[in-house]
């Protein structure tokens, strides 16, 4: 298990390095460099050259890469060519907002999907099970931004229960913080819950087919009791993997939700940086997002063998 975890961590580090090279190459080596992009196509060559010199863009790419990498390792994401501001504090502040949003959304989606999916599996041949399956199929097709718009129309504009946009830090007021969090979190969670419900249903159905469940049933346990005593832990494994993938999807999906609800998250910063043609900020933010995706994958890969001794021993 320990060797497996170490192997996996090495793989993570390698992936991170390769991903950073890819991001750097995309941003720095493609036609038109950052200075040109920041100043626009009408800028004089002299202006571009002076900005390049100011930020060291005239150095060879390899040195710039190591400079960027070294900076990030010490927590310095560099300075924006467009605004001249430090990028690190912006990332640190905004990533917290996004983390709250995404973690709350995955929690809500698990709370909805696990009971619903289990129920749909147990009642598979019943109209309730069929209805749950059908609703989840439709739910998957609704993009989170559409869900957000529908929720805003109903709960904000019509009923007036929740504000339609804005953010309040928890320190400024816990009530206001929670009230503003409801609609964004639910818009993100609903779609993911629909997807997760299908996986939970399918995982539970798979488990219900196993010999040990049949044995438990033969001993006289009801379907539900057999599932709770022997099945849930086994059904959890594919669900953990999917939830991990979803967490990564949510992180990127949050970009749009933050725009709709005007939340100061990392997605809003990314869109602003793209709109300002601020490539250094884009590069840093994308690196952070990819880092988070890779961390989530690492955690899932290490969590699965912990839950399942069979995989642990095989590894």
């Amino acid at each position: 298990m320990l060797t497996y975890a170490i192997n996996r961590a090495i793989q993570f580090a390698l992936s991170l390095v390769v991903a950073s090279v890819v991001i750097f190459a995309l941003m720095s080596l493609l036609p038109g460099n950052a200075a040109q992009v920041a100043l626009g196509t009408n800028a004089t060559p002299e202006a571009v050259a002076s900005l390049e010199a100011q930020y060291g863009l005239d150095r060879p790419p390899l040195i710039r890469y190591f400079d960027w990498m070294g900076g990030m390792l010490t927590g310095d994401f560099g300075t924006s060519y467009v605004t001249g501001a430090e990028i690190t504090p912006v990332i640190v502040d905004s990533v917290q907002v996004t983390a709250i949003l995404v973690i709350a959304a995955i929690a809500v989606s698990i709370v909805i999907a696990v009971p619903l999916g289990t129920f749909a599996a147990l009642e598979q041949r019943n109209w309730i099970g069929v209805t749950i399956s059908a609703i989840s199929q439709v739910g998957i097709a609704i993009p989170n931004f559409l869900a957000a718009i529908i929720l805003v129309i109903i709960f904000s504009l019509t009923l007036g229960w929740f504000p339609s946009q804005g953010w309040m830090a928890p320190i400024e007021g816990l009530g206001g913080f929670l009230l503003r969090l409801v609609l964004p979190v639910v818009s993100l969670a609903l779609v993911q819950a629909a997807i997760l419900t299908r996986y939970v249903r399918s995982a539970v159905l798979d488990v219900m087919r196993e010999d040990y469940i049949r044995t438990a049933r033969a001993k006289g346990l009801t379907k539900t009791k057999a599932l709770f005593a022997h099945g849930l832990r086994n059904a959890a494994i594919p669900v953990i993997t999917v939830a991990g993938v979803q967490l990564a999807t949510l992180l990127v999906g949050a970009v749009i939700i933050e725009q709709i609800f005007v939340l100061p998250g990392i997605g809003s910063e990314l869109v602003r940086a793209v709109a300002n043609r601020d490539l250094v900020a884009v590069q840093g933010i994308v690196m952070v997002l990819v880092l988070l995706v890779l961390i989530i994958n690492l955690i899932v890969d290490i969590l699965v063998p912990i839950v399942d001794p069979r995989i642990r021993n095989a590894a």
Partner: protein
Amino acid sequence: MNPTPTGAQSPSDYVDPVALDATDTSASVKIGPGRSRRSGRRANASMIIGAGLVVLIVGLALISFVWTPYDPTTIDPAARLQSGSLTHPFGTDTFGRDTLTWVMVGARITLLVGVVAVGIALLIGTPIGIISAFFAKQPWGMWLDAVIMRANDILLAFPALLLAIIFAAVYSPGTGPAMVAVGIAAIPGFARVARSGTLQVLGSEYVRAARASNRRIPAIAVVHVLPNIAGMVIVQASVAFAISVLAEAGLSFLGLGTQAPTPSWGRMLQESQQYLSTHPELALWPGVFIALAVLGFNLLGDGLRDRFDPKMEARGA
């Protein structure tokens, strides 16, 4: 997922533990006494509904080339922000443009992005997967397979929307970079499906026979592998199409995809936002059609999977 049974099925109230044991998870085929062997091959409800929705969207796009209720570019201030009526069934937007016309013309971009993105991913990802599987079977090539699959995993850390935003930042925002980015992000899915399918085929008797009779590897790949993995690749294409519809809509919603004045559902939805309190129906139609397109391709993929999945065939036989 398709709740309706397709084949001959067991009496509905009778739940035999053995039959339960054989019930498939992804499930349209109920296996019980008297189930016909080939029932899994028939078209099922998922496929029919999915195909119907896809035909509807494609039909709208095709019709829009020859006929639309109004000219999409005509601005009519007198008719702005109308609700649905006989003259404008879906209403009009803030410039008095007919929403139905825009929905029809918007279908073009949705399909264009899907076709190009899925085409890129399919044409690059499938060969990568097949080649990787051939390497995996050679003692000298296993490390190459490992390298290709690791590269695949790293690409997976860049979801479609993120990659498209990066492309919009480096190049200028537009439909072109969006299609390419979504296509590249979809490559790993095809590579994985093709690789696992190829590995299965390579382990079969007929491939061993072909090898024994000195067939070259490229010939084996074309004659034996491709036809056998085609089903799985088509399923993947359908799923990837649904993802690309979502990515394009999301990107255009952010203003980083299709640019004005080209009609696109994502941008219609974004433009509707400022009129939500007074004209919520402006968000309704583009939203409904995005959802229908995604639902259609997802259902089609589900239905096709029921037909093609070798695991299900093995179970059915």
